[in-house]
């Protein structure tokens, strides 16, 4: 309302003087149209100056509201703070710091769902051995990872219902819910983690029983297999030597692969593996589409190899025809041989899920 008043007075003053000026000019400029145009122009100018004054006033007021020092700051919700946080955050989305089974921990304007005491541990079972006059330990079983964290749920930090959230977390532990733990963009550990315990503690309540804040101590244990299938060169978790395998085909019908190991990183191992791929490879496992297209173009070498294949296949078919004319029922015996071979090389059944 105050802003509107200012605009009226400012605008009126401006238009009054503008009117006087416009009358003066109209007397000089002949014609009604000219006078009207002049009046419109000056009136528009007056309105614009009035609007500018309004904008200035509004900016000054907002400045006062935000900060005494005149700087605009984004507030992170402190305990006990009830001031609404200002907009204009450069980050359009909320960064989720930790996520597990739909439970998200983040900090954004007006709401903080936090955690502390995040611990990640890995262990294994060993057995004592003795040999050559020396005692040593040998690996018996791998145990996998264990993650622990304490969730801090506070109504003053924007958590709507700390009681419901805390009991939900404890309930997930009671049910043995499992899922991957994500930290921002990537997984924390490459293992499915199952909640084994959830302890609600440090509950703060109002005299009428409403929960203000609480802490939930969660313990997650790995519930999926940790190691890979093929034999690498050892390595533990993500810090050990990396083995990369690149598949390729030379166009002769068979697919081959090369492996390379690196202690630096997986990308380094992959680069080494690519170097091992023969130059006449038509395609390889991780090449880009453009490279595939180039590789797919027939080169003289590939054409020659293809011609040879055609020749050998025609020769084989001719030989087969000759054989068939010689014996009575060679085809059937050949088929029997193939069936026997297939029975011997039984394929592992593929599980359909």
């Amino acid at each position, binding site marked *: 309302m105050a802003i509107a008043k200012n605009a009226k007075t400012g605008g009126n003053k401006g238009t009054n003087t503008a009117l006087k000026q416009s009358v003066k000019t109209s007397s000089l400029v002949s014609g009604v149209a000219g006078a009207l145009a002049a009046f419109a122009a000056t009136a528009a100018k007056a309105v614009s100056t009035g609007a500018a004054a309004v904008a200035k006033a509004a900016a000054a007021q907002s400045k006062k509201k935000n900060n005494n020092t005149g700087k605009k700051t984004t507030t992170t919700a402190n305990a006990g703070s009830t001031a609404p946080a200002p907009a204009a955050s450069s980050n359009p989305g909320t960064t989720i710091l930790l996520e597990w089974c739909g439970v998200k921990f983040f900090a954004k304007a007006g709401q903080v769902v936090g955690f502390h005491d995040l611990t990640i541990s890995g262990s294994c079972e060993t057995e004592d051995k003795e040999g050559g006059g020396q005692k040593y330990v040998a690996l018996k079983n791998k145990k996998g990872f264990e993650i622990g964290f304490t969730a801090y749920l506070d109504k003053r930090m924007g958590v709507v219902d700390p009681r419901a959230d805390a009991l939900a977390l404890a309930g997930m532990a009671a049910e043995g819910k499992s899922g991957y733990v994500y930290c921002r963009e990537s997984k924390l550990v490459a293992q499915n983690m199952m909640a084994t315990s959830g302890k609600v503690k440090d509950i703060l309540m109002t005299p009428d029983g409403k929960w203000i804040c609480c802490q939930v101590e969660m313990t997650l244990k790995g519930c999926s*297999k940790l190691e890979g299938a093929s034999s690498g060169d050892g390595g533990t978790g993500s810090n050990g030597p990396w083995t990369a395998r690149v598949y390729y085909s030379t166009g002769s019908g068979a697919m081959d692969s090369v492996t390379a190991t690196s202690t630096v990183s997986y990308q380094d191992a992959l680069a080494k593996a690519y170097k091992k791929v023969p130059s006449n490879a038509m395609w390889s496992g991780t090449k880009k589409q453009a490279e595939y297209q180039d590789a797919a173009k027939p080169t003289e070498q590939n054409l020659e190899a293809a011609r040879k294949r055609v020749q050998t296949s025609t020769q084989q078919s001719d030989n087969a025809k000759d054989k068939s004319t010689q014996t009575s029922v060679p085809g059937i015996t050949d088929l029997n041989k193939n069936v026997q071979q297939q029975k011997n090389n039984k394929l592992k059944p593929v599980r359909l899920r």
Partner: protein
Amino acid sequence: MALYEITSQPTPLDFESTMGTDMLERTIRNAKNLLMCRKGEIPFDRQRGLDQAVFDLPFEQAQQIIVRELDRVMLWEPDVEVEEGWLERDEDGETVVHCIISVTFEE
């Protein structure tokens, strides 16, 4: 631990090797096929495949959720474990999904 990288870019199929007995090869090819499937395109199994809505998100946001989506996609190949996942922009401006997987066979 052996790790393999697969992408969502189509590659030419080697039909003769599809009759091979190497389960590892087949598993990796299955994983790649899952990556190239679009969610909703397979009748009677509309949840299988990569959700294309990921590509509608801002790039940074998509980077944050791609690993979760890859975990969901690889539920159809339980022998595969997603180690890492990220998005890359091609020269043509297309977004390509890269995924590093490890394979574990349960006996």
